[in-house]
């Protein structure tokens, strides 16, 4: 641990708030930019306004939730394979 009370700039709460704001502006900008720059969709639907944003967000939510659900089934303790019970090589 550093003796000085001030942590790295990136770790301070006020800079994290600032980063969130910048991130939000960038996100909004990428969607608004579609008004100016046309996205040529290959199948119609992917040319819709904000399709990339919605598709990216929703597919990530779906994947995280699916992984979470699968985790209940598949997760084991780290030493699952080394308990010696089954003499695994």
């Amino acid at each position, binding site marked *: 641990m550093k003796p000085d009370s001030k*942590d790295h700039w990136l770790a301070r709460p006020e800079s994290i708030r600032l980063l969130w704001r910048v991130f939000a502006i960038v996100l909004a900008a990428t969607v608004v930019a579609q008004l100016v720059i046309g996205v040529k969709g290959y199948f119609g639907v992917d040319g819709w306004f904000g399709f990339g944003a919605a598709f990216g967000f929703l597919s990530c939510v779906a994947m995280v939730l*699916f992984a979470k659900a699968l985790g209940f089934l598949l997760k084991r303790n780290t030493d699952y394979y080394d308990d010696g019970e089954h003499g695994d090589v």
Partner: protein
Amino acid sequence: MFEFLPPAIVLLLGAMLIGLVRGALRTAVLFAAPLLTLWLIWLVPDGVVFDVGFLDYRLEPLEGSPVRRLFATIFALMALVGGLYAYRQAKWYELAAAYAYAAGAIGVSFAGDLISLFLFWELMALFSTVVVWCGGTPGARAAGIRYAVMHLLGGVILKVGIEGVVVHTGSIDIQPMLATNFDTWMILAGLLINAAAPPVSAWLADSYPESSPTGSVFLSAFTTKTAVLALILLFPGEPALIGIGLFMVMYGIIYALLENDIRRILAFSIVNQVGFMVCAIGIGTELAINGAAAHAFAHIIYKALLFMSAGVVVYRTGFNRCTELGGLFRTMPLTAICGIIGALAISGFPLTSGFTTKTMISQAAANETLIAVYFLLAAASAGVFLHAGIKFPWFVFFQRDSGLRPKDAPWNMGLAMVVFAGLCILLGVAPQLLYQFLPYPVEYEAYTPGKVLFYLQLLLFSGLAFFLLLPLMKRTETISLDADWLWRVLLYRLASGAYGIAKAAGHAASSAADAVLSRLHVLANRHFSSSPGKDRPGIFARAWPIGTTALWIAVLLTSYVLVYYF
């Protein structure tokens, strides 16, 4: 016979020399061998360079073509920069094994016939196992054995297929085929095992993270990508590969999301990235094959870069789990920045090599109006950003302050990372550098405003999803079961169960035999023993008078005569 020096043999000799010399001379060999190999690779002309007689066959161990040179180039480059990364920290035998492993990969790249391909294939299996073992821990030893078993099994399956093709077609040439009969299916299965395709994807994430911090850099590059090259040469346009590739893409994302070990996250994302390539080979158009080759080239660089970054963290801290790490950006800025560049490249962020290569595959899917494939690949691109692009740097370098204040990378490791990080950006900014070496002429334009905007939306909003869902992604001290549970646990339990039953049956049989024997023994004792512990000997052991004997003989003969007459 050798009017031309095969590049693979040169690197193999270099690997042997590493063990024979030491000090500055060894360092010189470490850098000279891949450089010389690289130079020779670019001298290999198109077509078969020479052939060798073996039994009744004409082997063609050296055949050039643009895609073969492309893969051999990146393998040699990987050996060179990997050597730079590792040479001051790794044991000499790990370096020698890694170079021999790279030589096997280059040999596969130039193999003009199935038999040469198989020989170099097995060379890779052998020396990659040694690299896994160089992890030096009991876990690495065990994982190395599992790794070797899987790859030797894959080799046998490949060999069965090759034998079948040779017997039924009489040709050992490497030429495009489709999986239409038993032989070709066996070859395809043998290749796919090395590509970490389902159901055996688990070998990759099982073994690579057990190797040393330097070993995993080499391991990440060769085995799966030689499988990709072999699939390009042998099975372009095989429809089964589309589905297999898509499965690998999703498998990699889901398992990486569940994972806690930082190098295992990266290992799962190898399966994910190879899935993109396998899918492209399945699509099989010129654009798709170009995409697969370009993506393999770019992938080796950014994946090695990610493993280098993770390797420095493991080397400096001794920890390899997300739950033990965090906040390392304070003292490891170079490692963090290089790791982030690798993470952006793997996510296919504009201006990185991932964008200029992966979007070719998506474009190929769109051109063939494979709607589902296109949208699944787009979702997967978002997922890659989620599981590797943000998750890896976030949990290692940011997240919370773990209190660890390790030093940044040693200079050679840092330099290797900077070289590969530079290449990630160079190929992203100037894709023509790579496009001109692809197997088919490239008319693909990576940067159109609409496409860049689409991918920026896709990726940045998956970033938003990551941070909003962070509470759901809290790392746990767990591993995730995979298909290898079937043979590591279930098969073992079945085998030990069968052994127990056999043992019990054996016991029952031997105790029954014992009972019969002791019963016979008692009987024999009673009738034959002269001193059975009784007051007089057994009936056959007694001394009978001659008269009694004569009487019984007379009775016996009389009864015989009587029986004879009637």
